[in-house]
């Protein structure tokens, strides 16, 4: 209750006072969702609603988290543990989200395409292979960056060379996991300067990864003719890498906030839940990338 003193919460579980944030953020979500549905159906109101909702949600989360930060000295270790468990289960839910897309990739590649190839009566001449964009899809012309003339015909597409940008990206992300761990050790050893430096490097690596990913997308669309619409290959490729990229963005953002808070000296060697949560998230994103690198690019 409001009337409880901070001392009370040192020994008791922190039960926050009533709060308007959840209600208002639900309204913001409503705008984002309805706006999104309108947007894809070509209603001009859609983007506006999404903007309103997006700004609303972002500012609310900002206020909300600021409040949590302000309260955090009052939390006892049980609250800290609840947060950790909450984060761990949240990451599990993300794992399952990606599992759906990996499952789709597996199914399409190993079952659907071969079955289509067996269906001579409907799709004469279609042969099973991967990458594939289906019986009526485009044909692959080449591995790696083809010449502009080769790709000019609208019905053909090229593939991304896994040993080029994707390999760099793998190395970047793996490195970033290491730098993040170094930073964490520094934090636990109360070495603030080291913590900040290594964390900053991690964030920078994340941004670099994203920049390369954007480059790769531009190349795919403009030079390779590989798009979201390039049959199942394009669909799975962009869906998996796209959602992964979105998660990297989120992770980098979280780590950036953590970095700012490090600079403000919010964390102690014992209590730095947000740092750890951000780190878990980052490692998770990293592991997903390794999965992507193997199943989407290499195999």
């Amino acid at each position, binding site marked *: 209750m409001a009337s409880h003193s901070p001392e009370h919460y040192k020994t008791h579980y922190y039960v926050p006072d009533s709060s308007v944030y959840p209600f208002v953020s639900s309204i913001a979500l409503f705008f984002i969702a309805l706006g999104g549905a309108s947007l894809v159906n070509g209603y001009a109101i859609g983007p506006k609603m999404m903007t309103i909702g997006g700004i609303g949600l972002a500012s609310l989360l900002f206020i909300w988290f600021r409040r949590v930060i302000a309260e955090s000295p009052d939390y006892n270790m049980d609250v800290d543990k609840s947060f950790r468990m909450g984060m761990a289960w949240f990451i599990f839910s993300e794992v399952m989200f990606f599992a759906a897309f990996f499952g789709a990739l597996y199914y399409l590649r190993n079952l659907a395409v071969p079955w*289509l190839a067996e269906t001579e*009566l409907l799709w004469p001449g279609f042969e099973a292979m991967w990458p594939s964009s289906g019986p*009526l899809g485009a044909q692959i012309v080449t591995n790696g960056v083809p010449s502009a003339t080769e790709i000019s015909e609208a019905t053909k597409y090229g593939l991304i060379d896994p040993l080029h940008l994707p390999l760099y990206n793998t190395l970047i992300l793996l490195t970033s996991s290491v730098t993040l761990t170094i930073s964490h050790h520094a934090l636990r050893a109360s070495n603030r300067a080291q913590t900040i430096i290594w964390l900053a490097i991690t964030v920078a690596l994340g941004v670099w990864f994203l920049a390369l990913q954007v480059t790769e997308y531009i190349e795919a669309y403009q030079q390779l003719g590989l798009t979201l619409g390039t049959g199942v290959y394009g669909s799975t490729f962009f869906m998996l890498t796209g959602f992964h990229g979105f998660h990297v963005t989120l992770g980098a953002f979280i780590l950036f906030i953590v970095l700012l808070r490090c600079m403000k000296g919010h964390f102690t060697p014992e209590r730095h839940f947000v740092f750890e949560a951000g780190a878990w998230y980052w490692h998770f994103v990293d592991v997903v990338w390794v999965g992507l690198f193997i199943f989407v690019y290499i195999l």
Partner: protein
Amino acid sequence: MVFPRMVFPKPVKTALNKLAVASTLLTSALFSGLAQAEYRLNFQDPVTSVAREIYDLHMLIFWICVVIFVVVFGFMFYSIFAHRKSKNYEAAQFSHSTKVEVIWTVIPSIILVLMAWPATLVLIDMEDTTMSDLTIKITGYQWKWGYEYLDSDISFYSTLATPREQIDQFDEANAVPPGENYLLEVDNYLVVPSGRKVRALITANDVIHAWWIPAFGTKKDAIPGYINELWFNVDEGKEGLYRGQCAELCGKDHAFMPIVAKVVTGEEFDNWVASGGTSFAADAIAEAVDGLEAAVAEVAEVAEQAGDAMAEVVEAVVPAADAAAPEPTVSAKTWTKDELMEKGAAVYQTRCQACHGPDGKGLPGAFPAIAGSEVVMGDRDAQIDLVMFGKAGTAMAAFAGQLSDEEMAGVLTYQRNAFGNNVGDVVLPADIKAKR
């Protein structure tokens, strides 16, 4: 036999009113034995070996379940009657026993094995489509079935033949009571021989459907882009008509795409194939008309008892029955715009309205409107091509094989000039012929 419907008061307009009516009915008229149609409690009588195996399996597991149920709840009800506080029964305080826990894990597992074994055998048998005598490709469309006999050149479509007047009961005054085979009658039967193994390749054109004839023990989804197989072999001596329905939600008219198979002897079947597969087409139409006329007769009878109220209905019905009668084929002649429009309106209302709507407004998101359509009001050739050859990958099927030159010309002309699309020109049967 006919289902005499409940007599509603004068035309009920809003759904709300109708709900009120329904609740009145519920409290009064329901159990007066009005429904006379034969009902069944169990599967239809099987006429193929597979259907028989399924039937036996079904009864086996059913009885096992009944026994389990009776035993378990025998204990429970005994306990409920004997171990109650009102009888001053003292509660025992035991709370576990590893022995019984093991027993009631093991015994059910054994029962399951007893069920799984025959099920596996039946399943293996069902999946074996080899050594078939003939192959038919079945394609589901929104909302009709297409049949192709792959061993001969025969192919046709099969559409619901129940007249609209029986289905639409919104407006009491113009409605006709459902006939005996209401919703189970088609314009073209699927013709299959008895005593031969028929292999069916099932696919779909637009969305998923499922092809099901209960008496054959066959149900398989029809999936666009993929082919599923099933087989059946109807027992000799079981010739006749067998009816089934689409069994996977496929949109608005899911309930209106029945399947009727006419099983004939092998010899009759060979003759049928030799004749190019037409000799039974008229039968189906005649059946539909019979049904309608029987319905009319029945209504008349009921009406006599019910008084004048129904006489009105009968009058409305008779022309409808006439309209459903097969029309003599029109030979080459010159067509005026009015004739084309009239013909086109009829074709439109039977073939196109399901998707594009009776008023040409379509169904937003799924089916485009004809009213104001750029395709319709634009280039004539493009419109003809679209309707004749369809648009791949969409529900808009090729109608060239389903409509005669005259019908095609009519419906195209109709679209160009109806629903406020006053383009003004006509499409002639000759234009269609030229494109075939």
